[in-house]
């Protein structure tokens, strides 16, 4: 796993070293140029000086080539034998030379600067011709000295640098660690927290760069916590709601076991069948509810033709025993609603199921298009007591006019399913009796 601090350290160390290196190169070049300029100037000065000394007769130039004159020229004590001087007659005889100057002629040229290799050594030579005395003064210094000078300067720079670089590295490492402290703190927090701990991370003291990360982390925690809470509530609700039908089934089974009376046993068994139907419907609705709740923020798009869906449901749900029929107005076949098909089917199924279950013997459930573009489902049942209307879509709320198979979840599912597509459910007690359920676009 790449570490940010390692990465930062390497980047900082490499860039710092590069800056150092380029500084060294720059200093090397500029020092070299400066040294050259200064030493050239000195050569020139020395050449002119010797020449003028000869002119003023302060140096007696022996014309005999064998004699030599020492020129004690010492610029710096640490750099011995810096300058060498030769005085040649214009005829080409060596008239005099300084201590340590080579015997070979330093340069063949007449005036100005030149470079000559003598005995494997490169010399920088300045020549001054004194026509008056017929001599040529050659002053030179070894390039080796120049190199050494520059190298000493660079060494003087590099040696402390070599000492300082590890210290600098340590400082960079410490700074990086300190700079990343808020990150490390959060990582530590996250590492030590229990897997089920979904409390938000305290971000009050954190750096502004991490704040967005923390913010979205805390948001995620909140969402997961919410989802988990809903799941917990739901499981508790489901367990709770299943207990009553289970108690009914068990009681009826025990009645059937305890009674010798065939009529009582038969009745108990038919109650068990009703109970199983009711419980399986409850389980199906609980599953519908839980899948609707799982993605509570997501709005689902889609559209569906209402007629065919309602027709298919009507065929399935109509109750031939009680002669309850479902009528679907032909206008609905033309009507397309902007609801995701699965959600529409879920909502319509629960509404039709409710309508059929609450219909009286030979009742008719009518589905028609509403003037507002929605769908109306009407029944001839007892309706909902006015005071219960506001609570009727609460989950597990069962009003007084409940059907034998009612779970108290149907209308809650309808409302959730329609809400997912931006639609809503409205319930009215009809003036002529019965309930009118309207699926309409959200106002």
């Amino acid at each position, binding site marked *: 796993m790449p570490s940010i601090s390692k990465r930062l350290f390497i980047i900082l160390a490499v860039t710092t070293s590069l800056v150092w290196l380029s500084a060294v190169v720059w200093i090397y070049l500029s020092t070299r140029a400066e040294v050259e300029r200064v030493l050239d100037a000195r050569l020139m000065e020395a050449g002119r000086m010797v020449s003028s000394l000869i002119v003023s007769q302060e140096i007696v130039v022996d014309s005999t080539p064998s004699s030599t004159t020492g020129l004690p020229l010492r610029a710096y004590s640490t750099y011995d034998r810096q300058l060498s001087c030769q005085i040649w007659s214009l005829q080409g005889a060596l008239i005099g030379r300084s201590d340590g100057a080579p015997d070979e002629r330093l340069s063949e040229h007449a005036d100005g600067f030149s470079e000559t290799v003598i005995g494997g050594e490169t010399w920088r030579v300045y020549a001054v011709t004194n026509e008056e005395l017929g001599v040529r003064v050659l002053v030179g210094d070894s390039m080796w000295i120049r190199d050494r000078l520059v190298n000493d300067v660079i060494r003087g720079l590099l040696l402390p640098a070599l000492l300082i670089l590890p210290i600098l590295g340590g400082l960079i490492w410490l700074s990086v660690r300190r700079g990343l402290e808020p990150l490390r703190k959060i990582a530590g927090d996250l590492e030590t927290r229990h897997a089920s701990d979904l409390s938000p991370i305290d971000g009050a003291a954190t750096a502004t760069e991490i704040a967005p990360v923390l913010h979205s982390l805390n948001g995620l925690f909140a969402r997961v916590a919410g989802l988990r809470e809903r799941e917990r509530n739901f499981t508790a609700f489901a367990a709770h709601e299943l207990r009553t039908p*289970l108690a009914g089934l068990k009681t009826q089974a025990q*009645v059937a076991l*305890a009674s010798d009376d065939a009529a009582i046993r038969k*009745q108990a068994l038919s109650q068990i069948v*009703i109970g199983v139907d009711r419980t399986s419907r409850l389980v199906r609705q609980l599953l519908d509810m839980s899948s609707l709740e799982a993605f509570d923020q997501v709005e689902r798009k889609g559209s569906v033709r209402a007629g065919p869906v309602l027709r298919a449901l009507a065929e399935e749900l109509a109750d031939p025993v009680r002669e309850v029929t479902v009528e679907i107005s032909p206008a609905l076949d033309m009507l397309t609603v902007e609801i995701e098909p699965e959600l529409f089917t879920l909502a319509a199924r629960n509404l039709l199921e409710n309508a059929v279950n609450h219909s009286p013997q030979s009742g008719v459930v009518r589905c028609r298009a509403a003037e507002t573009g929605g769908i109306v489902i009407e029944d001839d049942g007892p309706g909902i007591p006015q005071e219960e209307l506001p609570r009727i879509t609460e989950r597990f709320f069962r009003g007084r006019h409940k059907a034998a198979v009612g779970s108290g979840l149907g209308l809650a599912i309808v409302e959730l399913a329609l809400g997912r597509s931006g639609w809503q459910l409205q319930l009215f007690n009809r003036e002529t009796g019965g309930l009118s359920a309207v699926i309409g676009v959200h106002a």
Partner: protein
Amino acid sequence: MRVLIVEDDAVLRDGLRVGLGIGGFNTDAVETCEEADAVLKNHEFDALVLDLMLPDGSGLDVLKSMRERRDTTPVLLLTARDRVADRIVGLDAGADDYLGKPFDLDEVAARLRALLRRAAGRPGARLEWNGLSLDPAKQKVEQDGKPVHLSRREYAVLHTLMAHPGQILSRSRIEEKLYGWQEEVESNAIEVHIHHLRAKLGSDAIQTVRGIGYRLGGEM
């Protein structure tokens, strides 16, 4: 023993009504708080089996208003919520016992018998009087150690009389204990049952107090 069942789930209500009937109880059943209040105000019950979650409110409200009326009828709460906290709330509101769903029908009957015994201040499960012994759990009657076979109604009449030893019970009071309010009672039904009981237990087992009612014969 007359028991009122307040439960909104149709299957469970029917199961309790029939099941407790088999267990020797005379049961009536309602499904809402409103009905329960109305029935409790006008009829006398020996015990109440009460569900907590009802369509028009909480069974606890029925319980509280009962206790406010100084109605001491024993109450057995039945509920899907059976956490300790829920039980405490229920018992503190005046319930005598508590059962979580799903329960065992036999246990409901046993707990009801225990409640009735405690309400009557009897030490043992059996009812005893003058050589008669009635076991409510088994619905068996013995006289001087020998089993006596009684019909369901005869047993119920004897049970009612033995539950109130030494007291004179009017005919209408015995009818109340025997029949639900929906049941048609023939005017001379009780006389017929008493007649049969006398035939099986001896003519002085049950005394008729003219113009008032009946009581068990002999002294304690």
